[in-house]
Each structure stands twice: as C-alpha cells, then as structure tokens.
C-alpha cells in the first residue's frame, strides 16, 4: 500500500478535495433522489472516488476523458461545474445538456469531457478516436477511457485496445474493477485468474503495459496514472490500468443488490476516503478540525449547486426538437 508521504503534501490535499467533492455530491444527490424530487435514474460513484481523482489529477484541461453511466465521479474530477451538473440531474435548462439527458450523459466538451455514455463499453472506441485525433494533430494531449470490468467483456474494448496498441495511441484505459456489472458478479463471467490480474493479463494480450492497482488507494492510483499519462504524452502508447475497487451502492440508487453482505462489509472497511483521512491525520497533513472544515466547505459548494439547480427553469416542450442536426 502506498503512503501519502510518497507525494507532495499539496497534491495530497488536492486529491482529497476532489474525492470529497465527489463523495459529498453523490451523498447529497442520493438524498435528493430518494426524496423523489428528481426524475430519471442515477448510478452513484460512491466508493470509487480514488480512481477518478487519482487519474484526473494527472490531466490538463485540454486532455480528454470518456465516461460511463456511473460517471459523476469522472466528470467532477475532470473539473465539471457542480451547478451545471446538478441542474442536469434535475433536468433543467441550465444543465450541461440543457436538461434533456440527465445523469447518464453529462458532458463538457470544452474541458475535454466527451460525455458519459449509456451504452456500456462505447466510450472505448470514442477514446480511441480522440487518441487518433491527437496523433494526427501532433499535440501532446492524452485521452483517458473509464470503463468497468463488465465493459471490458464488450467487443468494443477488444477492438479499441488492439488499435490503440497497434498504432501507439495516447489512450489510457482505466478499468474500474468493482466486481459487478449491474446484477452480474464478475466472478461468474470471468476466468478467475484473468479477473484477479486483469490489468496485467489483458494488457499483455494487446501488447500494452497493464497494471493491477489498489483502486481504493488514492496515492497508488495517482502514481500509476502519472506513469501511464507520462508514457502516452511521450508517444509511447497506451496503458491498461486496472483499479480494484467496490461499488458501495446498488447499480442504480434504490435498486436491489445481489451481493453478499459480508463481502460488502469487508470492502466498506477499505473506503478510500476513510483511508486517506486516517493517513493525513497520522502524517499531520490535516487535523480532525482541518478535515471538518474541508467537509463543510465542500458541502456548501454542493448545497450551492443544488440551490442553482432548483432555481433553473424546466426545458420548454418544443426545446426537444433542438440540436437534432447542426
């Protein structure tokens, strides 16, 4: 396990802030959603914060990411505006997608967020395309594709990984191994050794470096992503970064959960935010009061986002016909 001593204190605090932003946003969203105030569905990122935060901390504004149905974490970590996100969850006009698409499709192309995707695995070819574009335009940008172990069984992963490696494209494939795809547990649909070392084995299969990291260890994720992003920027090609983590809530908020309670309890002990808070206190990076003030400040940011969203008007019916074609 890595330690917060391995990286600069300023970066530790920045990473912690991002993880907290995600966690508090998601917990607030959970309360709002369960109260019945919003239409639609939400798929919460709670428990996986270290991955989005650790990876995106290595990205610049003009780098790209593709995200998933469980994408709030990715887009917050990449710098999305909390107000516009919340307004989109409320399906209001000031939302990122003008209130027409909701949680599943948050996007901010101006900061490289090429959209959260509702078709599992479809982000991989799009990330491949962004990588191809970077190569053609000869810039030093990179593209990160976030996807799950479930999605890695989709043919799109195979095709994208193969092409990215064949052409040495600057794509970082971040596989969030949370051991479940909606209601199918990964142990039932993978050969067990492959699942255990999916980064190493599947990376090797395509001819790219592949790593299996503790996805709930923010420092380990940050450092592994730093290497992978560095490789891509230098033109050394793609990397597969498999990050072991756990989805703390059900597939969609309010859904049933097929998983074993004892297994869940074990994983909750490895909560990425509990871990870093404990380490920061041990290493005297923050005191308990310091942590509380971070939490209060960020909760206020989230609350302001909710206020912004609630004030935003609903879309007009005829707005449904806008932007079919440019």
């Amino acid at each position: 396990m890595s330690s917060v001593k391995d990286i600069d204190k300023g970066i530790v605090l920045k990473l912690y802030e991002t993880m907290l932003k995600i966690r508090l946003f998601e917990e607030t969203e959970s309360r709002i959603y369960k109260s019945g105030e919003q239409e639609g569905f939400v798929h919460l990122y709670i428990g996986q914060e270290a991955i989005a935060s650790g990876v995106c901390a290595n990205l610049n504004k003009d780098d790209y990411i593709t995200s998933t149905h469980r994408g709030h974490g990715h887009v917050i970590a990449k710098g999305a505006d909390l107000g516009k996100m919340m307004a989109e969850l409320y399906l209001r006009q000031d939302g990122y997608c003008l209130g027409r698409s909701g949680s599943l499709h948050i996007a901010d192309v101006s900061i490289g967020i090429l959209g959260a995707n509702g078709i599992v695995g479809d982000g991989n070819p799009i990330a491949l395309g962004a990588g191809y574009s970077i190569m053609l335009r000869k810039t030093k940008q990179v593209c990160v594709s976030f996807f799950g172990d479930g999605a890695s069984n989709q043919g799109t992963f195979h095709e994208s990984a193969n092409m990215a490696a064949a052409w040495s494209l600057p794509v970082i494939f971040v596989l969030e191994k949370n051991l479940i795809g909606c209601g199918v547990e990964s142990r039932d649909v993978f050969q067990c050794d492959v699942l255990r070392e999916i980064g190493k084995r599947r990376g090797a299969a395509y001819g790219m470096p592949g790593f299996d990291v503790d996805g709930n260890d923010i420092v380990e994720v940050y450092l592994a992503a730093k290497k992978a992003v560095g490789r891509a920027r230098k033109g050394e090609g793609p990397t597969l970064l498999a990050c072991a983590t756990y989805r703390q809530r059900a597939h969609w908020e309010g859904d049933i959960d097929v998983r074993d309670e004892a297994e869940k309890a074990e994983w909750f002990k490895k909560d990425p935010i509990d871990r870093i808070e404990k380490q920061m206190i041990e290493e005297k990076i923050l005191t308990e009061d310091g942590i509380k003030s971070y939490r209060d400040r960020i909760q206020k940011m989230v609350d302001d986002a909710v206020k912004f969203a609630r004030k935003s008007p609903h879309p007009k019916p005829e707005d449904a016909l806008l932007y079919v074609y440019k």
Partner: protein
Amino acid sequence: MYREAIREAMVEEMKKDKYLFLIGEDIGKYGGEFRVSGDMVNIFGVDRVRDAPISEQGQIGLGVGASVTGCRAIVEIPFCDFMPMCADQIVNQAAKFYYMFGGQASVPMVIRTKIGGFIGGSEQHSQCLESWFTNVPGLKAVIPSTPYDAKGLLKTAINDPNPVICFENAYLYPMKGPVPEEEYTIPLGVADVKREGKDITVIATSYMVWKSLEVAEKLAKEGISVEVVDPRSLVPLDKETILNSVKKTGKVLIVNEAPIQGSTSGEFAAIIADEGFEYLEAPIKRVGAKWAPIPNPSVLEDYVLPSNDDIEKAIRQLL
C-alpha cells in the same frame, strides 16, 4: 467512372483539410475492396488513409471520437451487410452525440458503404440495408446513382457537420457518366428528375434508376412517356420534387432493389398518399426484391432481384 468520382471527391476534400482522413478495411495498400480508394495511400500517407483491423464498431467509434476532437473521419464499411456489426456506434453514438450533449459538439463524419447485389455476392454480401438507417433522427443519408451525383453528394456530405451515410452501389462502381472538370457540389435534400415524362412517375434509387431509365427508353418507342425521379438523398428527403412529379402524371411506381416490405419505398408511398392524394389517379405501386435473402447463382439472384421486366410490367399495369 462512379468509383473514380467518389475517389475524386475524397481526394479533393482531403487536399484541403489535413485533418480529414479515411479509415476502413483494405482501403490502403489493397486499394479498396471495390477499388475506390486506389492509390490514395500514396498521396496522403498511412495516417490519413488508414488500413483498419476487422473491427467495425471500433472503426466507427474511432471516427466519432476523432470527429469531435478536431479531425474529420470518412469510414468505409465495404459491405452494408457489415453495418449491423457497427450499428450501435452509428445509431447510439454518431447520431446522438450532438443532441444528447445539448449541442456541445457535432459529429462531422461520413460513413461510406455499398449496397446492392447483381454481383454474385451471396446472401451476406448483397443486401440493401439503407432503410435501417433512415429512421434515426441525427443521421443523414445519401444514395447516389451516377458518377456526377456521387461526387457532388459526397463532397457535400464530407462538409456537413452531421454524420452522413453514403450508400454506394456495387454494380455501379464501374459505370461511366459525365463529371465536370470544375469543382461542384450537390446539396443534400434535392432530388433529380433523371428523365422527364408525363404518363407515369417512377421513383427509383441507386442501380434501380438505371434499370428504370432503360425501361423508360424502351417504352418511349411505344409513345409511353415515363418520368424517372431519383431522390438522391434519403435524409433529408426532397418531398417537393416527388410530389410535383405525381401532380404532373397522377400515377406512381416506386422501384427499390431491397425487398419491398420495410424498405424506403413505403416511406415514399406514405408521403405521396398523405400529401399527394388529390393527384393520384391510381394506387401507388412498388417493385422490389422478392422476400428472400439474395442467393448466389444468376438463375436464382435474377429471380429474386427486380428485373427490367418487373418494372415494365408494373408500369403497364398502372397505365
């Protein structure tokens, strides 16, 4: 030649924009399965004329991703029979990106594919699946029947900021026709009256335009005047030209190489029945393939696919 006109369109546009590229199976070294791309890889290099692995979903997705990040992709799917394999990226990504993300970025890509039999290609290489993609808001589709139309429409499609599917035809690739030396384009959504007439309107697409013209020429000797209307563009569709023709003749035959049921012919017929009802002097008739996959030997293929005799018989029945 039709295939040369298509190549010219791509070469001209790729010379203007260094971030416009072509990708697909066999389009590079091999010169294209229908010899459309030819020696383009020698002109533009392997980065811009990219031989792809057999990964159609990946290729289309690559096109989408590149087209929303400062480049533009032309993806060649050599047989429309392979389109079901990548229909997800076409329908759920390319067609939806602009709308779904509230207008943040459009997808200026072109997907070129071929439809059509009469090539002994058998069941999995001879289909006409264009109607699958004309029911998806966000996509556009063109279906050129001549070299002139192919070049003009493709140039417009390449410069359209939306995803456009260009349905080429296998049988038409070697067909010759006049193409201007000077640069020109054809707008989407404008049909072409390929032959003027007054007794009956035949609406035909792709290779069926040629067959309808052959039949019209033959019937002209008997004093029967057939007007052949080629929509050229399926989405957007030029309803006005179609309805003006129906107004003129009062009788309509729609000819499509695909099986009648579920083909674009039904869409044309419904528009005419709805908005041109007052002009009709007879029911709208359709000619298309018989309801079977396309078999290989000519004795079977020619039976299933529409023939000049089928078209002629239908015209006579209407008159």
